[in-house]
């Protein structure tokens, strides 16, 4: 059921383009919602109202000059605070980047700005995108708009929360092992991770470069498609971007699912331990069938779910230990006082990295160290190949694979903070698609008895982003969850 407070990015774009309203007026309404809701949510790490007003003004000038192009004209957008926006802080939720100001724009920021977007602020995340609850942020704990005692998921929890609360219709996150899809599920919004290499990572602070991918959060699939179409494409500044035609937003729609074979695998459905989540996911599959899809059981293919956590955590932490070596306090970030260079490195990093980041750096350094490299890192890369092969085999028999996003709904703040392995298990259904680089979306499929949203995941073969979005578009029509916002979004000022 669409929330009365819901206004899609497409609605805003239309209203601004036709002169029914202005980007400035839209921004002021957005900032009023920030004033009302941010004290409850703690979703933003920084917010520069003056800079946002200048951008909105520039968009209005553009419209006044007769330029009504731009798929996101006047649309307020929030950015995960690991993306660079010139002149604004980038903390990555870490003390080690306290005070850092971005000297350039990320590729996605350039693209969305060209499309007419107005950047409202930077959102909270688990430190360096490492976590599944936002509790690893060095600055604050973001709350889930559906239940303020619960986490919003992570690592892009702030970006999921601001969309679920109706503050902005669109935000960006990054997904390494589920960091867009899992918070989207826990906050009851749409979260899309494009195919690896579709969207340039230029200006995204790296966590695990072979897995990181930027994608949108929104309250409807159309808005995610519009953002994706605006951001995707080859960028010479990121050599991992693929040079393939980018689908137009209109091509990411379908009227039904006739001719679509939906792969159903026990790991994504029948083996979900939470009975309520499992039942809602099963109902989602029924909706797909009602819409004309053929459900195909692919249980006989070993999708290797039991190896997901070790494979992912070895690959991701190894890459992280290398990527995060650059945070040494010399060129940016605050440096600890020390006598020599080596001591300055160790003290700066020891003082300013949080526990989860330190754990992962240690784990990755260990996995790459002499004597362990073959047994851990190389082994994980070989298993990663098996994941790609398994999915390729599955997609010979189906067009998409569908199932749950998160095995559990949002959990109380503090509940899993003490045990890293329990927290890692939150990503067990999102990691496999990350290892194989697949385009994957999470979208709402209902609520638990305690009124917590549950997410439904749709995976497609590499580069079939438009197919995934198209199938999701039909799913959304069936679920009726288009424009679903948390109740607190509807309380007026």
């Amino acid at each position, binding site marked *: 059921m669409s929330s009365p407070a819901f206004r899609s990015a497409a609605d805003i774009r239309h209203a601004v383009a036709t002169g029914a309203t202005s980007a400035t007026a839209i921004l002021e309404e957005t900032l009023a919602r920030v004033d009302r809701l941010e004290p409850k949510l703690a979703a933003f790490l920084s917010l520069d109202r003056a800079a946002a007003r200048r951008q909105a003004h520039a968009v209005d000038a553009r419209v006044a000059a007769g330029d009504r192009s731009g798929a996101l004209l006047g649309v307020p957008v929030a950015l995960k605070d690991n993306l660079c926006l010139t002149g604004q802080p980038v903390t990555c939720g870490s003390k080690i980047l306290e*005070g*850092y100001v971005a*000297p*350039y724009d990320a590729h996605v920021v350039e693209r969305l700005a060209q499309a007419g977007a107005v950047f409202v602020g930077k959102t909270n995340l688990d430190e360096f995108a490492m976590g599944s609850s936002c509790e690893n942020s060095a600055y604050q704990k973001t709350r889930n708009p559906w239940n303020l005692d619960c986490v919003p998921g992570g690592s892009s929890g702030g970006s999921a929360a601001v969309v679920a609360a109706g503050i902005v219709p669109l935000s960006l996150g990054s997904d390494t092992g589920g960091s867009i899809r899992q918070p989207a599920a826990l906050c009851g919004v749409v979260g899309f991770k494009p*195919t690896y290499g579709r969207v340039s990572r230029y200006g995204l602070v790296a966590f695990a470069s*072979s897995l990181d991918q930027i994608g949108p959060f929104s309250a409807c699939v159309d808005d995610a498609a519009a953002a994706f179409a605006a951001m995707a494409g080859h960028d010479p500044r990121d*050599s*991992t971007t693929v*040079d393939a035609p980018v689908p137009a937003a209109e091509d990411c729609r379908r009227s039904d699912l006739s001719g679509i074979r939906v792969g159903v695998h026990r790991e994504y459905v029948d083996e979900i331990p939470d009975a309520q989540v499992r039942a809602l996911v099963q109902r989602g599959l029924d909706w797909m069938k009602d819409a004309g899809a053929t459900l195909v059981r692919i249980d006989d293919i070993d999708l*290797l779910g039991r*190896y997901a*956590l*070790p*494979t992912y*955590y*070895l690959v991701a932490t190894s890459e992280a*230990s290398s990527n995060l*070596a650059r945070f*040494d*306090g*010399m*060129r*940016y*970030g605050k*440096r600890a006082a020390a*006598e*020599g*260079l*080596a001591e*300055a*490195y*160790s*003290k700066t*990093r*020891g*003082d300013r990295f949080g526990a989860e980041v*330190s*754990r992962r750096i*240690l*784990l990755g*350094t*260990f996995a790459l*160290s002499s004597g362990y490299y073959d*047994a*851990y890192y*190389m082994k994980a*890369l*070989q*298993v*990663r*190949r*098996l994941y*790609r092969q398994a999915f390729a085999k599955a997609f010979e028999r189906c067009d998409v694979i569908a199932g749950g996003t998160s095995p559990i709904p949002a959990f109380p703040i503090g509940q899993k903070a003490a045990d*890293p*392995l329990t927290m890692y298990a939150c990503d067990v259904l999102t990691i496999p698609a990350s*290892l*194989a*680089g*697949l385009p994957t979306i999470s979208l709402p499929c209902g609520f638990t008895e305690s009124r917590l949203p549950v997410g439904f995941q749709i995976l497609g073969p*590499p580069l079939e982003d438009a197919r995934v979005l198209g199938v999701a578009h039909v799913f959304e029509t069936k679920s009726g969850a288009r424009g679903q916002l948390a109740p607190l979004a509807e309380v007026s000022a």
Partner: protein
Amino acid sequence: MDRATVDKVARLARLELTDAQRDQYAVQLSAILAHFESLRALDTTGIEPSVYAVDLTGRPRPDEPGATAGHDALIANATAHREGFFVVPRVIE
């Protein structure tokens, strides 16, 4: 992972740990690695490692100067800088 290994890895990672942190990470990382042992059961003989999820082919681009953020904006983020250079602790005694 015993404490000595944690110390060794922390030195490699240039990460100063307190004694309490070292003890805690030794316990936690041991539990994590024990969980990861399950990978050993999987036969990967002859399997080509996959560094990326997609097969990438390097594509050279023309070596042309482009716009950059600029020297001043880049160096402004350093804890210490002087006359346009980064100032770092003494490297050579």
